[in-house]
């Protein structure tokens, strides 16, 4: 029986080669949309990860002021990390002749960094620095009046300055910077004998994998390290993803966007497939009636048709997967940087295979309800075209929809984003389809109610085509509407996303930080900077402290308790690290209070805390944090929780204390400013001359790197958005075209009745334009609604939608539908009137 079915399904494919080729091409577009978006977004995600790895210098790192446990090494090795190295940081004094200053000494082991590079001038491998060699930031040379080849003394070792540090991977987090960089080898650090008692050396162990381990695997590994390592509360476990708090939100948004586009492409492909199969079954009704008349049971007809669709889907998906897989290859120039070459050009044999599997699955799922129409074809139709369609069993109809819903959920889950997103997506799709369906039905009823008697014949024909009963007009309008929704929705979100990314870095982001400023130097420094033409000068006091208790419970106790609780995925390290507090009456502009209010209780010392940090600490509004500032304990009441736009690159703190509490505690001031790029060095020299203890840290290179990454992300988002829009338009055109290609009979008849070719063309165009306009109105309204919800809700970007464009959507959709209808009817339009005689 299976052989017979297969033979029958195969024979179905032999009918009309041209029609089937068109169907396969359209199906391939649908599956290419799903698999192409998959491979594009995988490539962009991979590219993002590669960039993030460069910022960390490795895939994974553990940082601690204590010794890093051996177990860490074993755990990471178990998961296949191939290389590891160590860096050590400490703040210390460097001197030359009579001059000395605080520097940030970094000792690097061989191999560091694994990703990205440290640029030394003249070029050297940092790991090959001899015991008595060092490389220094340009600021060190300026402030100590030193030159290359001269000597610099740190601790008990004299180093020869062999290179200048031009660029190094690093976090864009300057409140922890202690001074300008001095780079030595690990053995060189040992020779300085600085690592004795009381020295605050921060050790960092870094690992790299040969193959990109992927974000999820790294996150799992980091979680395991946090759970299993002794002393985890004193270890900072970081993956490449955590490296850049300032960029993290943007990257997260792009990841959300990629997931959304993947889901939208699924819905687009699915709607296209459903409509194409619907048209296909409609066109095959005559042949199916003959099969039924010859004795095939409805079940067998259904099986033959499903098998036939599966064969076509297999062919189309293979084509679609090829196109999808070729996309990252086709765009290397546009996406260079976003797509690292190695990743983009690597051929992964599983990718097309899984794309084919998903393609066939999507095609079959969406084909199920329309294929059921084959059940309804009565055998009597073989004799009489007008024979009444048979009812399909209710159970079968319900089952096909249920299967579609379940399958949709599974594929949505597979596309990424977790079960919650999958449910939300499937629910939204069902809801939107229902709205579109209701809207389409309403408009059809309206078209029926419009008095047609006074309409000119061409318009009458168009309106009549909308109002025609029982011919799946509502289904076609819904499919078109979903297409319009995806195309318009994607371009709305893409447009906002890419402009948001392009402007994520404010033009006045600071280009230099001044550290180690004493409180009495602050005003003077600020004045000097303003006089020299610097903009956006901002200053904030910094008090270093340790967190002693939360709501009266010692942090060590809280850390020990949390470690055992696998359900809590919070950083333990934040409890034990050195905290940096600031104080002041007002918050910077890039802060927004989300809970509570500033300084409400005159009787208590209050603190405002950053949202995520509060989560990590486990603190809420009303919690009391006990801070230890150099032996003195302060109780601080959490009276407000705020959101910080870290991407502003301004000076921001997790903890801001109200004025009048910490002023007398020992503190320094951090000053940030935007320096005119031509005069950066001159201004720094001026500051160094006036205040030798102050260090300027130039962040322009890092800023430019971040800007570069963001603009590449914007390009990636735009390319992906355009891809979906173009494929969407092609699918829409395909859907309209397939419907239109079945119009030969009508065209022949109209010509026989005396319609000229021009009138027939106008008639077909108008009919499709009206359908397109209705779908455009419904889909366009839905697209604006969805874009608003996605932008404001999921992506947390002010939507600022161009509402004025909403009325433009229906005419655009009408034009597209008319064009596609004419293109699809091209052969039909050439039908000779004599065809009318052939029934």
């Amino acid at each position, binding site marked *: 029986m299976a052989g017979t079915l297969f033979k029958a399904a195969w024979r179905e494919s032999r009918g009309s080669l041209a029609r089937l080729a068109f169907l396969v091409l359209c199906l391939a577009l649908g599956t290419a949309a799903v698999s192409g978006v998959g491979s594009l977004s995988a490539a962009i995600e991979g590219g993002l990860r590669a960039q993030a790895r460069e910022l960390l210098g490795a895939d994974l790192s553990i940082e601690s002021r204590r010794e890093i446990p051996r177990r860490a090494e074993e755990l990471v090795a178990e998961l296949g990390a191939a290389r590891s190295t160590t860096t050590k940081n400490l703040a210390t004094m460097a001197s030359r002749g009579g001059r000395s200053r605080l520097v940030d000494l970094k000792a690097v082991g061989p191999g560091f960094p694994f990703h990205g590079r440290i640029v030394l001038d003249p070029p050297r491998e940092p790991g090959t620095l001899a015991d008595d060699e060092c490389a220094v930031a340009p600021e060190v040379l300026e402030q100590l009046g030193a030159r290359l080849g001269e000597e610099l003394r740190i601790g008990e070792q004299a180093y020869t300055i062999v290179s200048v540090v031009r660029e190094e991977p690093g976090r864009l987090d300057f409140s922890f910077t202690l001074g300008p960089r001095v780079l030595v080898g690990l053995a060189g650090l040992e020779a300085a004998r600085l690592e004795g008692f009381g020295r605050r050396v921060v050790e960092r162990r870094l690992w790299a994998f040969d193959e990109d381990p992927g974000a999820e695997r790294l996150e799992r590994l980091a979680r395991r390290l946090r759970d299993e390592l002794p002393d985890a509360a004193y270890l900072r476990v970081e993956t490449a993803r955590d490296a850049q708090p300032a960029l993290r939100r943007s990257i997260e948004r792009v990841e959300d966007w990629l997931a959304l586009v993947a889901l939208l492409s699924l819905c687009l492909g699915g709607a296209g497939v459903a409509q194409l199969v619907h048209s296909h079954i409609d066109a095959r009704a005559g042949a199916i009636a003959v099969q039924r008349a010859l004795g095939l049971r409805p079940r067998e007809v259904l099986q033959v048709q499903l098998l036939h669709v599966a064969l076509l889907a297999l062919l189309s998906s293979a084509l679609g997967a090829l196109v999808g897989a070729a996309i990252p290859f086709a765009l290397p120039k546009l996406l260079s940087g976003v797509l690292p070459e190695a990743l983009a050009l690597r051929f992964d044999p599983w990718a097309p295979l899984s794309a084919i599997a998903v393609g066939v699955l999507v095609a079959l799922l969406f084909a199920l309800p329309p294929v059921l129409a084959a059940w309804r074809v009565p055998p009597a139709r073989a004799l009489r075209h*007008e024979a009444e369609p048979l009812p399909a069993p209710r159970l079968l109809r319900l089952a096909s929809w249920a299967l579609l819903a379940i399958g949709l959920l599974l594929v949505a889950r597979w596309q990424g984003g977790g079960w919650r997103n999958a449910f939300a997506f499937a629910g939204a799709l069902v809801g939107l389809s229902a709205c579109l369906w209701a809207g389409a039905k309403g408009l059809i009823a309206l078209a029926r109610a419009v008095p047609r008697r006074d309409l000119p014949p061409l318009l009458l*024909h168009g309106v009549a085509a909308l109002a025609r009963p*029982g011919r799946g007009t509502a289904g076609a309008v819904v499919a078109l509407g979903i297409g319009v929704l995806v195309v318009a929705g994607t371009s709305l979100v893409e447009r906002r996303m890419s402009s948001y990314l392009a402007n994520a870095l404010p033009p006045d982001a600071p280009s230099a930080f001044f550290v180690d400023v004493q409180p009495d130097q602050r005003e003077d420094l600020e004045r000097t900077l303003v006089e020299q033409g610097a903009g956006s000068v901002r200053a904030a006091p910094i008090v270093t402290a340790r967190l002693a208790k939360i709501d009266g419970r010692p942090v060590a106790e809280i850390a020990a308790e949390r470690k055992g609780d696998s359900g809590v995925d919070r950083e333990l390290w934040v409890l034990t690290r050195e905290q940096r507090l600031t104080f002041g009456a007002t918050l910077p502009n890039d802060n927004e209070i989300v809970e509570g209010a500033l300084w409400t209780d005159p009787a208590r010392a209050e603190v405002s805390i950053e949202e995520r940090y509060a989560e990590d600490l486990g603190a809420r509004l009303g919690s009391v944090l006990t801070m230890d500032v150099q032996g003195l304990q302060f109780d601080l009441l959490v009276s407000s929780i705020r959101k910080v736009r870290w991407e502003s690159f301004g000076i921001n703190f997790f903890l801001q204390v109200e004025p009048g509490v910490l002023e007398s505690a020992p503190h320094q001031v951090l000053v940030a400013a935007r320096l005119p790029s031509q005069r950066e060095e001159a201004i720094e020299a001026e500051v160094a001359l006036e205040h030798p203890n102050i260090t300027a840290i130039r962040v322009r290179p890092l800023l430019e790197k971040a800007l570069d990454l963001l603009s590449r992300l914007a390009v990636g988002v735009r390319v992906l958005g355009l891809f979906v829009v173009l494929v969407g338009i092609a699918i829409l055109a395909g859907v309209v075209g397939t419907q239109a290609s079945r119009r030969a009979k009508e065209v022949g008849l109209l010509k026989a009745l*005396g319609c000229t070719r021009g*009138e027939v063309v106008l008639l077909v165009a108008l009919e499709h334009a009206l359908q397109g306009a209705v779908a455009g109105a419904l889909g366009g309204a839905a697209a604006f609604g969805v874009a608003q919800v996605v932008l404001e809700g999921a992506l947390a970007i002010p939507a600022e939608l161009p509402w004025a464009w909403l009325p433009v959507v229906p005419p655009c959709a009408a034009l597209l539908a008319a064009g596609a209808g004419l293109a699809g009817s091209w052969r039909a339009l050439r039908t000779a009137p004599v065809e*009318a005689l052939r*029934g």
Partner: protein
Amino acid sequence: MQATEASTPRIAAKGLSKRLASGSTMLQILDDVSLAIAPGETVAIVGPSGSGKSTLLALLAGLDRPSAGVVEVDGRRIDDLDEDQLALLRRAKVGFVFQSFQLLPNLTALENVLLPLELAKKPGARARDEHLLRATGLGERMHHYPSQLSGGEQQRVALARAFGPAPSILYADEPTGNLDATTGAQVLALLEELRAKEGATLVLVTHDKDVAARADRRIHLRAGRVERIESGRA
């Protein structure tokens, strides 16, 4: 009614041939057919399957082009007109009744009937067509779609559509072929009644001897050639 040599025939064919390629061979569908049909005459084209009846009808009606020969309507050659000129000619002078009714499924019965009139921009079309529909017994169903009508009803709508613009020529291709005997007879009676009232020339293709017997002349085709022509109602 007989054609007279003196008056210009409504339809004339001279040496009509139609050849079609079938694979590497050429099929001769019609071979050197000549005839003349007078205004108001009813002519039946009869013959076995494959004799070329429908092809001859298509060539006379300007739905198809001959491989050789000339077709004239009211003394004017139509075989050298382009498609649009032919369409305008059909719009002005020709009505059709098809075996499979050929109603546009988008349009209601009344709208189907109105379509040729509206294309021809004839004033007062609506009143005339409503009248025609009533005359065909479809007054109650004029707002139904074709899929909601029986075969006989659909053919009656097709008749109303054909007569709507008051054509001078009516072509009917097996008008009762898809109907049962009783409905077929009713439709035929209606066709004759309307034709007589409108004074149109009727050319019909049929298998049915009884139908053919009602015509003024019967042109018998065999293998693409005119075998014989019978005159007078049988």
